[in-house]
């Protein structure tokens, strides 16, 4: 049984990354993933538990030039009600609206949702569509160092990311999508709340004169990590968004997905869902741009 011998609650990023540099720290933010995983015995506490919720300046949503930055501590509720995000990246707000339940949205942070690296993580799919990058901070040579890594390269396996133990997830950033960019997110399930995605899918692009370009597609719960659906993107890029191409994209979605059987669905059903939902999302894109 792991025992917590030290509890930290730093108020500055400086203090937090210094503590991480000393090693053996469990980072706590919203706790909505951490606590149940601990209860279920899937993880063990390190000797130090560090609550990062009090760090100043890490819970802000800002737009500087064309770059939007969401601090790690930003809650899903804050994303859901952000006017800035509603203008810049409505697909992210739409995904927040399908995230767990009100209570969990109030506690869960964007940093936690990304670092938990669930293949079904709801906020990850729209961020993949936005070509987001992750900012990691660490204490090196007596100062804070940051590095940026593309979100689609961030995940290694279920629950595993490239983040080092001495690094703190500081923010997720993305550039304002090009004019005319429209994206949709879809997550089926019989319950409108408290539903872990059986599969989730998001597709976006610029639809101009009937031609679909800058196509970005991402899928959740169909592979060990959330993925960019490259075959779907290639199938659609630069072509008219019509019934034939939508059908072709639906086939490509099936090829991009490598789902497994688990307690939530069979691989057969997941495969079926990504195909039909690709159609649904693309139809939504069409309807909303016409």
């Amino acid at each position: 049984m792991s025992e917590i011998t030290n509890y930290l609650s730093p108020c500055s990023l400086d203090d937090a990354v210094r503590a991480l540099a000393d090693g053996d720290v469990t980072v706590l933010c919203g706790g909505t993933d951490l606590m149940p995983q601990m209860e279920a015995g899937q993880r063990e506490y390190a000797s130090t538990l560090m609550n990062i919720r009090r760090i100043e300046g890490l819970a802000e949503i800002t737009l500087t030039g064309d770059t939007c930055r969401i601090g790690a501590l930003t809650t899903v509720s804050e994303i859901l009600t952000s006017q800035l995000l509603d203008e810049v990246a409505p697909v992210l707000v739409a995904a927040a609206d399908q995230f767990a339940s009100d209570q969990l949205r109030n506690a869960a942070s964007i940093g936690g949702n990304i670092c938990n690296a669930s293949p079904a993580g709801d906020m990850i799919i729209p961020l993949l569509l936005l070509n987001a990058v992750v900012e990691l901070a660490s204490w090196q040579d007596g100062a804070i160092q940051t590095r940026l890594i593309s979100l689609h390269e961030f995940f290694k396996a279920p629950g595993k990311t490239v983040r080092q133990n001495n690094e703190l997830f500081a923010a997720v950033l993305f550039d304002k999508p090009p004019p005319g960019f429209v994206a949709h997110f879809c997550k089926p399930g019989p319950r409108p709340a408290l539903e872990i995605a059986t599969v989730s899918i998001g597709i976006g692009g610029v639809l101009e004169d009937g031609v679909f370009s800058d196509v970005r597609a991402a899928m959740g719960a169909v592979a060990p990590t959330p993925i960019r659906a490259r075959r779907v993107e290639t199938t659609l890029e630069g072509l008219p968004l019509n019934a034939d191409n939508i059908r072709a994209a639906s086939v490509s979605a099936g090829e991009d997905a490598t789902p497994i059987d688990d307690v939530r669905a069979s691989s057969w059903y997941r495969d079926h869902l990504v195909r039909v939902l690709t159609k649904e999302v693309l139809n939504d894109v069409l309807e909303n741009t016409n």
Partner: protein
Amino acid sequence: MNKKTIATHIEKTTLIGQRVRKPDAADKSTGKTRYINDLVLPQMLYGKILHAGRPHAQIVSIDTTAAEQLPGVHGVLTGKDVAGLKFGFVRDNVALKETVRCEHDEVAAVAAETEEIASQALGLIKVEYKDLPGVFSPEDGRREDAPLIRGDFPGNKSLHFAFEHGDLTAAEAESDIIVDNVFKVHHVTHCCMGTSCAIADFDNNGKLTIYSQTQYPYNYKMDLAPALGMHPGDIRVIQPPVGGAFGSKLDVYPYEPIAALLAKKTGRPVKVLYTREEEFKSAPTRQPAVIHMRTGCKKDGTLTFRSADVLLDNGAYTSWGPTIPVVMMRTVSGHYRVPVIAYNAQAIYTNNPYAGSFRGYGNVQTTFATAQQIDMLAEQLDMDPIEFRLMNAQKPGERTPQQAFLRECALDKCLTTAADATDFVTRQKEYGLLRNSDSRYKKGIGIASSIHNAGGAKIHKSDGCGTMLKVDDYARATLITGASEIGQGIDTVISLIVAEELGIPVEHVTLMNNDSDLAPWDVGVHASRTTFIAGEGARRAAVKARQQILNAASTFAEISADELDLRDGFVVRDKEGSIVIKLEKLLRQMHFQPEPELVMVTDYYEPNSEPEGADHISNMSAAYSHAVHIAEITVDTWTGEIKVDKITSAQDVGRVISRAGLEGQTEGGIAIGLGYALTEDMQLEDGMLKNPCFRDYKVITAPEMPELDLHFIEDGCAEGPYGAKGAAELPTIVIAPAIANAFYNATGVRILSTPLSPEKVVRALILAQQADVSSSDSMATAAVS
């Protein structure tokens, strides 16, 4: 300050059928209620149970030395400590096991100063198992070469029930249409918000006080005693507020004797409280079954026979679950006028979790079959679906082949009320015509009906309830009843009834019903019986108290008691409503006169019904009632999701007593039924539960609740209080087949198994499409089990 004007006249009003607030509503909604889960007794220890975590095994060795030596541990128990202390419906269970027969089997138990120490101690117990091949379905269990789960039950056979009436061969021969299907219903569990809990405490005279969530305190003593080697009379049961029961607390489960045995061993109170994961794995389930049903009718629509061959998954032990075929039988034989019946039910031991009682008690399973077959027949006859049902619906005064006396029968009214409210026949035709369109979303409407006992169920020698009532010098009434409150609202019903008879505010009635040393006999909360039986007992006691008060008032005022009434805390003249004397003043006068009297009355009410009996031919309930549900759904043919848009219900309730309570019970019943029909599913793989959490075991939550249109048919009942009938279970019973029938209406595809999950729906639709393509008959429909 305003001067209060004192009325001189009080109008006659009634509380019956009114909306009154549940007495515990404010405390429950503000978090003030102290549930059993919150209780801490001085010196209390925490008990934890080591579960086997494997479905079938011999325990080769068990070493508890390290656990016993852990500081803070006060006692450890294993199977050898309880040898011979068998309990359960057929005495096939024991609190701690030496052979493992299901995943949650209790292998050892620890009592310690804290929960953490107790958990740590469990980790120190070393058990060596020899795994055995298991049986994971009743079909496999009855095969000749199946592993034997218990030596004392050859062929893995548990309970068997049969009933036959009339000449089946002849009835088949005269049938023009016969539908023949195999229905399969699955494992679900109650999901009470309060997890299972017991606190046991012995005094130095050897008397056990057990704080329990039980919903049947009297028989509970009888059932718990053999597990402890005690006399039932030495057990006192206290029932603190509970977070739900729904039938799950209608038996003794191993954690309860374990708490008591640990308390005995340590000499201190011991509390055992399940975690949510333990609750999912260890709580009883609704009984899964395979139902082979056949129903026949003539061209003119007259039903000719119904046969049902039922195979039930008993699980590893026999709780009350395996007795559900008795209730299944009543619906098979008694729903609609069916002259010939052949019913056969066999429960088979498996290494799955074991089934207990669950709201609807077998009728949920049977009605999934009967209501779909009635729907199939109506379609094959090409008859108006409501007409077909009406022509086969019994009339008041008819008896079923099992001799259930349908003294009042409002099935026809339930059918027409629900059908009229939804324009059922027209809409069903309309949606049926649209079913082959290209549209992704398809709409459907489906109807289902059933019958249930509504005046208790005499499965014991007695189905009665004892009541004591006192009215004190301040005109406050206290009613002591054997009937338990498990959230179903008997507290409201009884307060309302006493207030009605004594003409006092509902808030001036206190209910005492949570201590078996205090409260008189009752059979328990089950069979939709409590309003009917405890309510009638309360009414009879209150009428006696009222008469005593009116007689005293008559002497005081020199007015005949017949001309007096009790209203609003006053004795009044019945006709004019003019005040004679304030009730509390009269009560004090009665008390302090030369020949003093207190108002203290008792009543024992035994309903007019007959014991079920071995031949199953008896009028086992004092009343029966029907319910009809109409479900309107939208099917997403791409994802397989079924959205329930609206449920219209028409239920014969005799008479509404507590309106808000009845609505709440109906809505809650529908929610449980919807979960069963659509989303709830204990996913078992070789006896091991794969989804022991609310994330993956999906109960219906508030946003999924459809629009509800509830109609209560109030035609009265000769025996229930004010004409009321029991009403709690029917809403859960009729919902799944209504949805299955609506699904057929929407898509032309039959799904014969629960739940109608998105994946199953998609598979069924694809299968049907393939069958359609390969078949020249474009009307081909597919049935999926």
